């Protein structure tokens, strides 16, 4: 903390020249903060690009399904959603970085995180549910059921979180619900939601449902496109980011990984569901991230992988100067501790991601005051990693909180 105090006012004045100075040291193997930051920007762009491309494939599959609603096309649409989630989940490590996805009020802000990935959702806000399973059921007219509601991108975007923060109308989980439907099966049955493709053929409001699915998918694709554009070389935020003081940029970048490991994934997405397993039918369905598709274990895995991507500066074809390289240069012992913590997270996240049992079953087997099961074991590893990210940042004179 003390270091941060001194550093910030100082860098406030010297801002303009710090970038240039640090770029001049490329002759030997020395890693500079500037090169880590540059590689990070490439990493962000590449992973948003992949996420966008996968979402476009999903959009194509969904179009095929809505034009020709068959069982096979329905399955293909669901498979495309699952595949696209593998990419998006990794990009969550770019949240809470004072970047465009969740910052408001700046000229470069996009602020579309809630529009893309808000959860848990009150699905009866969107469409029919089994009576008695949701708080709005019975006295709330769903958007699909309300024929006076004109389903457009603007309208759905305007309705998102329109009543409270569970009244979600857009994003991954709205699409997920429209593809899978409520998961009313017992966790031990290892089944996701059982929506029939006939919801898009002969069921009541089939046309409106198909229209909703199309529009909400377009909205997500557009949102991802906005992120790709802004992070592209010469893009609006990329330009802002590259002009930041290097230490500030590095601090913001690593803060995203710190946030996902120490907070969003570990606390919000794992401890809370473990502790609240008495949701619907005492099954905790409501508090798991992808509760309709039973894909939460992959969310956990992808989120953790996103954290590791930032630490190691590597993703897909990107492999450059990294945070851990920089730490190693200053304090090899701390880098080794960080690496051990990261490696444990990789192992434990894989134990969940590749588990034969779905997440909604795993959480019914655990409580948050015991750390014996795979979910809480992963939480422990993530907390430890967050602490090591913070300690490593301190080594570089960067305060995270």
């Amino acid at each position, binding site marked *: *903390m003390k270091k941060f*105090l001194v550093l*910030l*006012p100082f860098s*406030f004045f010297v801002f303009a020249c710090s970038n240039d100075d640090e770029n001049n040291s490329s002759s030997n193997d020395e890693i500079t903060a500037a090169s880590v930051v540059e590689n990070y920007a490439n990493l962000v762009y590449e992973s948003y690009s992949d996420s966008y491309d996968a979402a476009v494939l999903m959009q194509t599959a969904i179009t095929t399904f809505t034009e020709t609603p068959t069982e096979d096309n329905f399955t293909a649409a669901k498979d495309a959603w699952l595949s696209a989630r593998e990419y998006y989940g990794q990009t969550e490590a770019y*949240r*809470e970085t*004072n970047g465009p996805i*969740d*910052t*408001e*009020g700046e000229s470069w802000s996009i*602020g579309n*995180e*809630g529009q893309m990935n808000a959860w848990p959702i*009150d699905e009866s806000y969107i469409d029919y549910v089994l009576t*008695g*399973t949701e*708080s709005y059921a*019975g*006295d709330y007219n769903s958007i699909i059921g309300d024929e006076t509601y004109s389903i457009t991108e603007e309208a759905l975007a305007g309705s998102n*979180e329109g*009543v*409270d*923060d*569970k009244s979600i109308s857009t994003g991954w989980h709205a699409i997920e619900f429209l593809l899978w439907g409520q998961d009313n099966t017992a966790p031990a049955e290892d089944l996701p939601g059982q929506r029939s493709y006939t919801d898009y053929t002969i069921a009541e409001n089939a046309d409106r449902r198909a229209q909703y699915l199309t529009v909400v998918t377009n909205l997500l694709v557009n949102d991802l496109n906005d992120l790709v554009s802004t992070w592209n070389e010469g893009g609006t935020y990329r330009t802002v980011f590259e002009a930041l003081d290097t230490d500030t940029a590095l601090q913001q970048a690593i*803060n995203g990984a710190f946030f996902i490991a120490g*907070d969003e994934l*570990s*606390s*919000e997405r794992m*401890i*809370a569901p473990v*502790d*609240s397993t*008495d*949701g*619907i*039918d*005492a099954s905790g369905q*409501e*508090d798991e991230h992808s509760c309709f598709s039973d894909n939460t274990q992959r969310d956990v895995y992808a989120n953790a992988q996103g954290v590791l991507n930032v630490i190691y500066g590597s993703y897909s074809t990107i492999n450059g100067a990294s945070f851990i390289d920089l730490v190693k240069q200053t304090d090899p012992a701390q880098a080794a501790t960080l690496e051990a913590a990261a490696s444990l997270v990789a192992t434990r996240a894989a134990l969940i991601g590749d588990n034969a049992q779905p997440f909604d079953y795993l959480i019914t087997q655990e409580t*948050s*005051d015991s750390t014996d099961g795979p979910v809480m074991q992963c939480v*422990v590893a993530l*907390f430890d990693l967050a602490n090591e990210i913070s300690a490593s940042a301190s080594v570089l004179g960067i305060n995270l*909180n």
Partner: protein
Amino acid sequence: MKKHITFIFLIALSLFSCTTEDDNYITFEDLYEEGEEFLTGELGVNSTSANAFGFEVDGLTFTEIGAFSTGNSLFNQNWVSAPASTTARDGLGPTFNARSCAGCHFKDGRGSPLVNGEDSSGFLMRISLPGQDLFGNANPVAGYNTQIQDRANNGVDYEAKVNVTYEILNGAYPDGNTYELQKPIYSFSDEKFGSLEGILTSPRVAQQTIGLGFVNALPDDQILQFVDEFDADGDGISGKANYVWNVEENTTTLGKYGWKANAPSLKQQIAGAFHGDMGLTSSLFTEQECPSPQQDCADAVNGGEPEITDSQLEKVVFYQATLAVPNRRNYEDLSVLKGKANFTEINCIGCHRINQTTGISEIAAVLNNITIKPYSDFLLHDMGAELADNRPDFLASGSEWRTQPLWGIGLISTVNNHTFFLHDGRARTIEEAILWHGGEAENSKNAFKELSQEKRQQIIDFVNSL
């Protein structure tokens, strides 16, 4: 001694602004105080995202983070009417204002003013008859008690609907610039249990819920140090403590929370909100909120006794107590730094106080002994006739309000997508909120109006940096 220091400081400040009429002479180094951006010491967060109010303070133990996470979940979760398959979350109502805490405190943020015909998102109306009950609380209204529950479960009548119209008040600054304030005028319709004509009313919007654990951990003397009930120092500002009924301690203690400082502890504030706003009983408030003659309400199935268990209540209390205060933004901007000097110069700081120190927190040890900058003295002040609701609340008169802490205020637009301020959200901007200040704040308000437009903007920039 304190007064002496303030006096010298004010002189120094006014010298400052005279001798340096050319503002270019005022530099960052002159105005920036080391660490001023940290409103809660090292426990603040740097987030500027829509989730900026949703983070826990640093330094919680593993078990505490678990409690925070579960409390967060309970805070966000919609409660449902009993009987339901979700036994842990049933018991909503029978009458209520919101289904979840987050229904009013969206993302731990601030509610919006009433919109006619829409279910409220963070607005409620307190009501009473003149006089006090046995505990010093406002006298209940027959058939309704002390709050209008405008929603109800299926098969049960809600109590009434509240409506609002606005009267436009035009004003002008001495420099000729004009402004417009909107004064809300409330009425009732659809009263199900008798006329509400002529009763006392107090409209309220939900406050952001950051930093509450620090307030809970403030020893009484940290608040009482600013009491000057009869304005003995003659500065035009009094400061009065509210003493209110403490349900757990079964006695009267210092009020700390709410628009009128009418709740003595965080636990009672939260249990009161569960009870009054959501219709959930707890060990503090065991009776269903169904005053006679609301028979359908009284006959409705409940969700257990109590509906919210002590363990659940404690986790929500823990969660609320450990929500962090965001560190300031843009604190190094020259405009903000000048705004800070202006803020002090026109004595906004006389009520919006800083530098209190917490004692021992019974909720989380990490909150112990922290010097905080809430920009509030947490005392009651007469705010003048224009803001008055004319409804007493324990020792608070109908024109007295508790100083609202300003920490986090600049992020409300990010978290909640609006900038509605004051107790019923009537001010549409920070500027309007300042202009509504009257009574003990009249001098500061008038001094604000006398400032140049540039200096007024600097104050607004400063407030937005908090």
